[in-house]
């Protein structure tokens, strides 16, 4: 076969290989693909927005729930002063005043026992300031403390006796010869 014939054969084979046509309706297929892509993108964006909003709300709730530490119980307890301030509570004044005046009663070092009404009164919320002023009873006069007089008796001192020390003689053994 001559060279031009070979060239012709090659051209024909290449043309044949490249002679296929695209399927009809490519325009519609591409535009439909673009549209579906846009719809998918919009859906993803909406979903992402919803998720972001939901997570933001969740974070706000979590942060709001943390707040300062509160003791267990109802919310009003958190606003109440601790029990160390019982002297400000009208119902709890009596036993503390009794302790200050030191009347003959319970021995020193023992805490005065709080009765159940007193405890309820201590836990109850503070009344308004005006009521509180009226509720404080007048203090009883403070009695002078009676101190017993010291008795000074002579202390009998016994004499010390010191015995002389006896020292035994030291005995030193001769060293054994080296082996």
């Amino acid at each position, binding site marked *: *076969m001559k*060279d031009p014939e*070979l*060239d012709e*054969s*090659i*051209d024909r*084979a*290449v*043309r*044949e*290989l*490249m*002679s*296929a*046509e*695209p*399927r009809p309706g*490519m*325009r519609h*297929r*591409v*535009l439909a*693909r*673009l549209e579906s*892509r846009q719809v998918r993108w919009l859906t993803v964006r909406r979903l992402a927005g919803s998720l972001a909003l939901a997570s933001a709300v969740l974070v706000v709730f979590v942060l709001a729930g943390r707040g300062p530490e509160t003791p267990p119980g109802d919310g009003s307890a958190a606003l109440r002063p601790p029990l160390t301030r019982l002297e400000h509570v009208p119902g709890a004044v009596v036993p503390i005043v009794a302790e200050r005046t030191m009347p003959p009663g319970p021995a020193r070092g023992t805490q005065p026992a709080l009765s159940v009404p007193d405890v309820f009164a201590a836990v109850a919320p503070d009344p308004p300031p005006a009521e509180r002023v009226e509720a404080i009873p007048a203090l009883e006069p403070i009695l002078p403390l009676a101190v017993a007089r010291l008795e000074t008796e002579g202390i009998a001192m016994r004499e010390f006796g010191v015995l002389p020390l006896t020292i035994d003689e030291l005995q030193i053994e001769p060293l054994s010869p080296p082996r």
Partner: protein
Amino acid sequence: MTVTEGARCSDLDLVRRAQDGDTDAFGELIDRHRRAVFRAALAAVRSPADADDVAQEAFVTAYRKLGSFRGDSSFKTWLLTIAWNRALDRRKSVLRWLRQTVTPHEDADGTPRGIEHIASGRLSQEERLAGAEFQQALRRQIAALPRKMRDALLLAGSGEYSYEEIGRMLGCPVGTVKWRVFEARRVLKEKLDRKLRNLP
């Protein structure tokens, strides 16, 4: 604007309109260049079904990247470059799939039988009658060419693209494209000549 009016516009006008969100203008661009895009893909993947899919992907990609088109080159060249790159991606994946699924049977001349089968599927009845054996040998030799030579030969032989456009697609100068086409022809003629001499 209707499609008929759009057909009178230049590619650049249609691109500007498509950039403004006019999908009809982009549809007109698809109609104008679908064959060129399809054949560029066909030269790379060699399967019409795959080429059609690649062409669609190329148009979708072009639409998404339309904002980056500055008009430095023609829209067709820009589009063909996108299509060629998509086709190369597809070719790599197809080859990988072939390697994994098809046992690599080869003819004596090293042509993979899978590729030969694809090529011989497009033989017309007339060609078979005119010299089926020779045509088959020719197709096998084209398929067995080194990729760079085969790509240049198929793109140039399709008559769809200028050498400049092929150079842009392949990413090489026009002179290199011409040399590859020439070299592909020379190798083919050499092998065919040897084959013809062995034939009874």
